[in-house]
């Protein structure tokens, strides 16, 4: 039991990952898919950050008062990954808004219908 609890960060990660993944797969709404993707990515960020935690270490901002810091490398990496994630989200949402302009909907099934209608009418 205590072991389970000591690994709680992984449980959080796994929980978030599943939430995000489920949303991406199950939601027919494109915006929600993007949000699910965000949650999914965020879970990985948390995993990295929690891995970098050093017992009794403080935030890795150099200061004369402290000697033990958390491992800064994962922070740096995840900063990059967050930037990438934001870019992905921005691109995804801009695609959604263009899809909305083109199809008048952001629902998966309605878009599919619209495309098959178009093919049918040809």
């Amino acid at each position: 039991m205590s072991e389970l609890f000591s690994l709680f960060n992984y449980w959080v990660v796994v929980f978030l990952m599943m939430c995000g993944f489920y949303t991406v797969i199950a939601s027919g709404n494109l915006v929600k898919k993007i949000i699910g993707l965000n949650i999914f990515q965020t879970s990985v960020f948390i995993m990295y950050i929690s891995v970098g935690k050093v017992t009794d270490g403080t935030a890795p901002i150099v200061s004369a008062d402290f000697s033990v810091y958390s491992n800064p490398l994962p922070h740096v990496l995840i900063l990059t990954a967050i930037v990438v994630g934001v870019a992905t989200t921005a691109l995804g949402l801009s695609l959604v808004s263009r899809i909305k302009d083109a199809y008048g909907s952001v629902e998966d099934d309605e878009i599919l219908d619209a495309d098959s209608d178009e093919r049918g009418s040809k």
Partner: protein
Amino acid sequence: MIAHLPALVVLVPLLAAPICFIFSRSPAIGWVITVVSSWVSFAIACVMAVTLLNGGEIQYVFGGWAPPWGIEYVVDQLNLLVVLVVTGVAAVIFPATLKSVRPEVASHQLPLFFVSLLLCFSGLLGIAVTGDAFNLFVFLEISSLSTYTLISMGKDRRALTAAFNYLIMGTIGATFILIAVGILYMLTGTLNMADLAVRLPSLGDSRALQVAFAFTIVGVGLKLAMFPLHLWLPNAYAYAPSAVSAFIAATATKVAVYVMIRFLYSIFGAEFSFSEIFVQWLLLPVSVCAILFTSVVALFQHDVKRLLAYSSVAQIGYMLLGIALVNQTGLAAALIHLFNHALMKGALFLAVAAMVFRVGSSHVDQLRGIGRKMPWTSAAFVAGGLSIIGVPATVGFVSKWYLVLAAIENGWWWMAAIVLVASLIAVVYIWRIVELAYFADSEASETEVKEAPLIILIPIWMLVASNFYFGIHSSVVTRFAEGAAAMLWGQG
């Protein structure tokens, strides 16, 4: 100077992108910048190739930090092959882009188009060159994001949904890779690939390592359109602007295959991948299914670009098959096909791009009788098709020959048979188009269709010529690939 080349080959297009953005008023300037930087990159790649063939490994360390912490760029035979493919294809295809995409991409997006193209290009090169696992992820995302942008610029509104689906699947794949890299970092405390390769074997058969491995396979599998994970690919290739399809089809999945090989052989090690995890028993059925099923699916496509896209999935199956055969010849076959497939698909997609440029569609009904109206373009398509089929004196033959050899080396005659059956199916789907192009009466169209402009036609024929050149002088590539395969096996 030589030591800086690996960084330069990536930085040239990466720095050209913002310059391109500054001149965003004029697409022509963007185009010139794009073309010039692709040529410069190609020249650098050639210099590296010469250096490598005469000397040894080329290494470049960023920021003055020693490799385990700093980002390191390494060039060996394996990634040099990939760099040559990417820069070579770019150098040939980019000149055709401006003319080709003008009717397809909205004019206000054109400047952005070239920025994205450059970013995509530099991302692909970065993946190939970097020796750092996390850096690889970053470049993967740079190239992917710009690819999504490029695809979304397609004329048809379905380009948007195609780009969106690719974005979702691609991001999941990238995130999987990120997870795997994270676990590897947890286990070893390093991100440097060479360092990882040294440290991982001492871990033994840890559960976490297996998890990392699984995430890698699925993540990279998504990126390279491994058989059941390929669903994003057909639409993405079909609705992207045609020149983009040509560039991406020729390079993007190849680079992903490179990543797969790098992870399997250099990072996890052949010993772990094939003797402990037995990944070949996953790759084998997957590649066979890809080769057979998607080839059959290609038969029933009504859009030439979609047809070629499905064919691409099948061709990726060949590369995975080469890996799954777990012998040095098979690996060499995968690498040879990696190179060769870039040439064939580049030629084919660019030929289709030329047809789309004149006809405005790649639907088979619109291409009836195109052989008489665009004889040079159609002839190029036929030549590329012959290469896909694997006719001797084309590169396709060399690839298949090596694959069959590798299969026979394992004593798997049935596998050789499958390769031949797939070639037969390829004959049928290529022939369908040839028949339409040459032997079908064209529908009375009010607009007179002319031969493609030279700026597109010349790149097409350069690719076609390379299909034959490397099909005849195959030793240029096979020696390279065999060297890389020997090196990778030596590591394992």
